[in-house]
């Protein structure tokens, strides 16, 4: 009997997807496309010659950058080294400051709820502010130089690192911690003996990951006066010296690739 009803309904060739889903998906699709087209028009409204003109222009412009003037590289070696040093210092300080913040924002360790909520909210707000914006503010506060750049990197990476590590802490096996508590250990001993060995490899790996982020961020901090190679880049841009700009960009590109490669290998070895 059921067979019969089935065969009659299949003669009506039911749609592959229910009509409601289909309508919803179509609507969302058109909204997304519509907003995309609007965004394209909106962002091009100040362009003099329009999109087609710009594309034609691009060929001419690319010629301006080539050939890159590689002979400037020895001269920018020092600021490049300073950029890397900024990232190293900032990552180290952030890694130290992260420890208390990550513990306080891990739900299984910070059992006192108001503290947990406060640190979480603080870190969430911290993470919304882009690195360069922080650098702008700190340059205003400390003046032009490496120092505001380092502070900006510390604050910026603290937000990311503390979140990653508190999530790792939340996923640890709590059983050994219970055993330590049962044998009379105090809070510090329980954390040091039960928790630290479990999160240490991930901690090291995340610190390296944040170091990679900091390297990328530190090369551009100079654009707003916060020291390093970006400062030289900004100067050369100001002089419209495009071959020099291209040489610096190529140097940045290579340094970032090398450091990322090393850091990746180290991280693979850790986990």
């Amino acid at each position, binding site marked *: 009997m059921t067979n019969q009803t089935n065969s009659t309904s299949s003669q009506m060739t039911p749609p592959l997807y229910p009509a409601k889903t289909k309508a919803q998906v179509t609507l969302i699709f058109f909204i997304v496309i519509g907003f995309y087209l609007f965004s394209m028009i909106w962002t091009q409204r100040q362009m003099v010659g329009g999109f087609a003109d710009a594309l034609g222009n691009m060929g001419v412009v690319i010629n301006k950058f080539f050939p890159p003037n590689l002979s400037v590289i020895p001269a920018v070696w020092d600021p490049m080294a300073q950029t890397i040093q900024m990232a190293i210092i900032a990552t180290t300080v952030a890694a130290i400051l992260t420890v208390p913040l990550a513990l306080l924002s891990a739900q299984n360790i910070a059992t006192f709820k108001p503290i947990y909520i406060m640190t979480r909210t603080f870190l969430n707000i911290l993470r919304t502010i882009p690195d360069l914006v922080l650098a702008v*503010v700190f340059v*205003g506060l400390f003046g032009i130089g490496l120092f505001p750049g380092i502070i900006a990197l510390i604050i910026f990476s603290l937000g990311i690192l503390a979140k990653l590590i508190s999530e790792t802490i939340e996923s640890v096996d709590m059983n050994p911690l219970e055993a330590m508590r049962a044998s009379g250990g105090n809070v510090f001993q329980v954390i040091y003996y039960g928790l630290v060995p479990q999160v240490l490899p991930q901690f090291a790996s995340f610190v390296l990951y944040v170091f990679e982020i900091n390297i990328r961020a530190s090369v551009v901090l100079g654009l707003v006066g916060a020291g390093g190679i970006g400062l030289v880049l900004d100067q050369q841009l100001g002089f419209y010296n495009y071959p020099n700009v291209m040489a610096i960009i190529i140097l940045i590109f290579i340094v970032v690739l090398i450091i990322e490669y090393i850091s990746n290998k180290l991280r693979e070895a850790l986990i």
Partner: protein
Amino acid sequence: MATYSLPPKPKRSLFKKTKRIMIFLAIVAVYVWTFLGIDVDWARAAERAVNNFHRVIPKLFHPDWEATGEVAGKMFETITIAFAGSFMAAILAIPLGFLAAQNMSRSRLLTASGKWILSAIRAFPDIILAILFVVAVGPNAFAGVLAIAIGSTGMLGKLYSEVVESIDMRVVEAMEANGANKVQMLFYGVMPQIIPEFLSYAIYRFEIDIRASSILGIVGAGGIGTMIIFAANNRNWNEMGLILLAIIIVVTVIDSISARIRRKIV
């Protein structure tokens, strides 16, 4: 109580010992290089901080509400830059993602070249791309769109290729056995498996792009960044306060909406 026997010392091979020492020395060397090389004028920075503190920090917490209209307009432009850029990247990354996925082609050369292109793009910070595009198409928001589009393609392409590599190839095999051709296999076997993840990653990248596009104006590529650099040059910290507030609100709202959508999709 005096009688106790101590456990034997752990036996470590010479190789392990030297490896430990080498790693330790390498770390020490990096830090020595860093602290000897870095040239920070601590005294001057501290002096400046003391002098400037009351001129900067309190003002940040008293936003200049009169600039609300302008800030809202530029913030909207930032959103359109991020949206157009991530949309373009979401499309551009599809062929690159397939190219870099190991299970989609038998040629190792093709896969390797795909992976190389993607990691090369990722090595460029967004703002460097913006510098290039500002020179190419002029100082306007569209340069920002292009910078975001290219910059996001690197990361999305990599994430896409990982999704493609993780699909269940048995489904595709079954279709091949049914006599389906390559295009049919792609649309009926591969696509249904990857679309939710692709969408979810694209939306996630939009979150990142909102942050990224808010600073592009610093090099002239449109959006709220334009106002940031003006406010900093004019030491208009009240306006900076409002800009910061706008960024925090917009980023938070978009993050939470996008997180909700992503949870629904996957």
